[in-house]
């Protein structure tokens, strides 16, 4: 028995066309973006990024319904804030109150939270407590996973430097490390609530740059390079 399969994949060719500003503006005017859809996009951003008060106001002012229960944002933001301000224990407790499955099913997230806890202990100069915590809570996990072990070693190395800030592992003490952990928890909670973890707006902006790059190969046309002002720039001819 033989089966033959055939597939055709649509790709682009090579010739290049010049489109004047006037023509392009005509095309832009033919595109209708519904207000309702833009409202949804803005609401999606506010909700996913955790602007609970702004989402509530926006619901009132624009009549747009959020795609998630606003009360859950408050809980999620409390967890995020706890991590951002270094209260990792508090954050872990709050996550478990929300849904114990989140940490049970995310060993990597749990490890990163514990690692953040270790970083905070070291930051606060609690050397003994830090060592004890590393050996009892983190080392067993490192035995299960090579990646975890390397991260643990890097973190413990913080204790070995006098001038930690300028050491090769100094970045761990940076605020950005807290933000990284916080956004990881945030994403996990959103996923557990069956909501996407990233807002749609930034990916649409990326898609715009991508679509323009693609079209560049085929045509010279007015582009938008400054996303902040959405200004059309004349095509380079």
């Amino acid at each position, binding site marked *: 028995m033989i089966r*033959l399969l055939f597939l*055709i994949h649509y790709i682009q060719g090579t010739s290049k066309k010049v489109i004047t500003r006037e023509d392009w503006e005509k095309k*832009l005017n033919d595109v209708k973006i519904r207000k309702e*859809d833009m409202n949804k996009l803005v609401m999606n951003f506010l909700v996913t990024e955790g*602007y609970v008060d702004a989402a509530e106001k926006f619901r009132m002012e624009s009549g747009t319904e959020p795609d998630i229960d606003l009360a859950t944002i408050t809980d999620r933001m409390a967890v995020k804030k706890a991590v951002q301000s270094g209260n990792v224990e508090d954050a872990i407790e709050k996550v478990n109150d929300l849904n114990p499955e989140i940490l049970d099913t995310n060993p990597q997230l749990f490890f990163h939270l514990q690692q953040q806890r270790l970083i905070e202990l070291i930051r606060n100069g609690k050397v003994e407590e830090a060592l004890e915590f590393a050996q009892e809570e983190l080392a067993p996990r490192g035995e299960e996973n090579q990646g975890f072990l390397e991260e643990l070693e890097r973190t413990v190395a913080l204790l070995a430097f006098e001038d930690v800030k300028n050491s090769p592992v100094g970045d761990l003490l940076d*605020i950005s490390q807290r933000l990284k952990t916080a956004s990881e928890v945030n994403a996990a909670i959103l996923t557990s609530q069956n909501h996407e973890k990233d807002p749609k707006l930034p990916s649409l*902006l990326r898609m715009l740059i991508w679509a323009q790059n693609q079209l560049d190969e085929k045509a010279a046309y007015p582009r938008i390079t400054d996303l902040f002002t959405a200004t059309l720039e004349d095509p380079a001819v």
Partner: protein
Amino acid sequence: MANDSDQTHQQQHDLIGSYFLDLWRLKSQTASASHSKDVNMTNPDNEHEQLEQDDDDDEPVPTELDTLNSSGWFSIVLPDKLSVKYPSVNLHGHDVGVVQANCPAPVKRLFYYFEMYVKNAGAKGNVAIGFTNEGFNLRRQPGKNGQVVGTVEKDVKGRLYPTVAVHSQNEEVSVNFGKDPFLFDIKAYEAAQRAKQDTSIERISIPQTASYGIVRSYLQHYGYEETLNVFDEANQTSVPPVTGFHDNGFNEHAMYALNHRKILRKLIMNGQIDDALRNLHEWYPETVQDDTSAICLMLHCQKFIELVRVGRLEEAVDYGRNQFEKFYNLKQYEDLVKDCATLLAYGEPSKSSVGYLLEDSQREKVADAVNAMILSTNPDLKDQGSCLHSYLEKLLRQLTACFLQKRLLNGNQGEAFHLQRVLLAKNS
């Protein structure tokens, strides 16, 4: 001098007014079209109606083999119209039996796929599968031959037909255009292709604060003042504060008339049209000076709609008689005024073809028109177009236009961009 400036104002107002009337008209047309569709259909599909401007799914796809245009003597299309057989008589070696599908492969998508199943490899096993164009000589073997699981990247002008061919005694094949499950995991292939595209999109870096700035200017543009204040506050108090995207003055309107715009939007969204009109007369008399202007038409119509909504029909009739007469004589408004008046004809107007007038989106349209009108009174205004479109809208229009243009330059092949699809998609 004063006259000149009045004239420019007038032109701006006309531009804004006619823009929003066109939006209204568009809604009226799609509403009446979808209404007549609903009436004709016993089971209206609401999900589909949501994607009303989306014609990509309507593109015909091959369903069976073409029985009229095949190469007669050297192939027999069996009654299922999916199988082809070479006649059992001995024919010359050049005699190939080629059969095309009943329509070309659809192109407004990422790719198209079909399968052929060889029931009988015949004397020589010379069956073939491929794509051919309309004028293809149906006595030649089409493109590809053999046991191929592969792709052809296509950049050919014109339509291509899925095609199969048989070439030797007893050969028999059948094709699957998707009626039966495919052998090849097409879903996985599609997912992989999309993932490839998504990865190259994700790799693009954009300024971290771009989204914040765009959301903020959207709130400014439409006068969502309370949301804006709370949003700003949250950004200042967050750890660390989100900064670097405002106070750069990149929104031309910034805070212009923000509070007035907010109040007027709220009044209109609540149906308090008299109050809105009174405030407009007091705060921005130039916007409502001409009682036959588009903006006045919209407000008076909305007042009428609000009376119908609450069942004050006699008042509505009186109001209509007083207000609509001057608009009736103006050709450009005729259809819209008629839509409003039609509300009176129905016991349940919300279920009629003009039911859209009672939706919140109609109030919003009026509120947006008033908002744009006020923006145009800003003495510092440089670009008229900025009253009509927020930055967000400009970016989304550019995105959509790029996809359409790319497809246009590509022989109408490829996908379009649909914001509504993106909004419906989970975990994109």
